[in-house]
């Protein structure tokens, strides 16, 4: 199973070029899309989910031409949008039953079992008879997760799925996703770098519609080995350091300001070499394109 995106481009009618010549190849497992807000992650995911057209390029999934054979792709797709609503006057159980029907699960008892299993997994079992209109934000998000995973999809696209979930629910969701996503392709967009390093076998950094990096988190981090230095400085010195070094991030730890820089050679000056992490990869890639103002 493979999803390949070739030279995909999309410009909206207001002139914003959301996707610029993006090419990616995804195999089974979880693939993370990292990028700041407005980077084009959602546009890319919506295009793969057949919800919007592309201007140029092609997408192939398991022998399906995604941009042309939309219904074929939708039969194997599970999609959780970034923002969505629910029908207020229907229970989660009934809605999931209807969705399973639409996704082609024709056996009634199988549908009931499936809906029950998923609602249990997203911790909504005791609220399954309640109308969706009475759900809180986090509960709606969990319902969204359940609707994306119903019907044994082969391609799961989840757009910032953990927004609005508390840490316990977030862990629960990731466990569920890794359990269900074993033999599928899962595309996960997030701006939480830590999520990508713990979950995804491969990831890509997207910024201003372009892919800045694609690879495995380990390789990305190893590339920066011995190149990341950090130092504690006072707030007044930040400008001076920014002009002299390639500052990739600033962090406050117990009121003390630390800067992290990237340098091929030892910068001296009291800097000590640090172990790189995925956040450094993210900031160093984004930093090449824009000024990062983290203070």
């Amino acid at each position, binding site marked *: 199973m493979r999803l390949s995106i070739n030279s995909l481009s999309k410009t909206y009618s207001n002139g914003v070029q959301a996707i610029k010549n993006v090419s990616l190849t995804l195999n089974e497992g979880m693939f993370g899309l990292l990028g700041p807000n407005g980077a084009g992650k959602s546009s890319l995911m919506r295009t793969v989910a057949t919800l919007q057209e592309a201007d140029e390029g092609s997408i192939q999934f398991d022998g399906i031409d995604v941009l042309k054979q939309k219904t074929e792709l939708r039969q194997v797709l599970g999609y959780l949008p970034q923002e969505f609503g*629910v*029908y207020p006057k229907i229970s989660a159980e009934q809605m999931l039953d209807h969705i399973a029907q639409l996704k082609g699960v024709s056996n009634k008892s199988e549908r009931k079992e499936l809906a029950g299993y998923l609602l249990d997994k997203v911790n909504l079992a005791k609220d399954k008879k309640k109308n969706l209109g009475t759900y809180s934000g986090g509960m709606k998000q969990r319902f969204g997760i359940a*609707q994306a995973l119903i019907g044994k999809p082969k391609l799961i696209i989840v757009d910032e799925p953990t927004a609005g979930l508390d840490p316990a629910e977030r862990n629960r969701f990731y466990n569920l996703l890794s359990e269900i996503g074993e033999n599928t392709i899962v595309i996960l967009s997030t701006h939480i770098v830590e999520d990508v390093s713990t979950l995804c076998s491969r990831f890509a950094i997207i910024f201003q519609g372009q892919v800045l990096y694609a690879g495995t988190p380990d390789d990305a981090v190893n590339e920066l080995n011995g190149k990341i230095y950090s130092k504690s400085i006072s707030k007044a010195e930040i400008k001076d350091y920014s002009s002299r070094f390639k500052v990739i991030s600033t962090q406050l730890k117990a009121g003390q300001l630390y800067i992290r820089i990237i340098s091929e050679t030892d910068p001296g000056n009291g800097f000590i070499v640090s172990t790189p992490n995925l956040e450094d990869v993210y900031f160093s890639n984004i930093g090449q394109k824009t000024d990062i103002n983290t203070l």
Partner: protein
Amino acid sequence: MFSKIFLFEMQYKLKRPAVYLYFLLAFVFTALAFANGAMPLDEHQWINGSSAIAFYVAIMSLMMMMVSSSVMGLPLIRDIEYNTKEYYLSYPITKAGYFWGRFLSSFLFVLIIDSAVLLGACVGSKLGPVFGWQPASHYGPNNFIS
């Protein structure tokens, strides 16, 4: 695809109190009008005469138009109104199944609600003489309820 969306829409509609309310209002209003003869009639015209019914239905159709737009308008914009289009349209549904399923299901409900007018006319013309609101001679034969 059509039947799944059609049946789901019916299931959804059956949970809306407004549907029952519209039916009840149309029925009670019509039954009372026919039981009291509260409509413009000529001196020797039967209250439940075909021309009187036709006239009444024509007037009522103006009111039922509002009911129709309320019942039929929502299903077609529901996915936009509740922002469910983002995932609902990612399911393998066909354009025709989606549109006709929702449209015809709602249309069936409009027909059922509209039938309350005819049912009300039937029942009202029986109730009038029973309660003594109108003499029985003001009503012609009722072939639906005899």
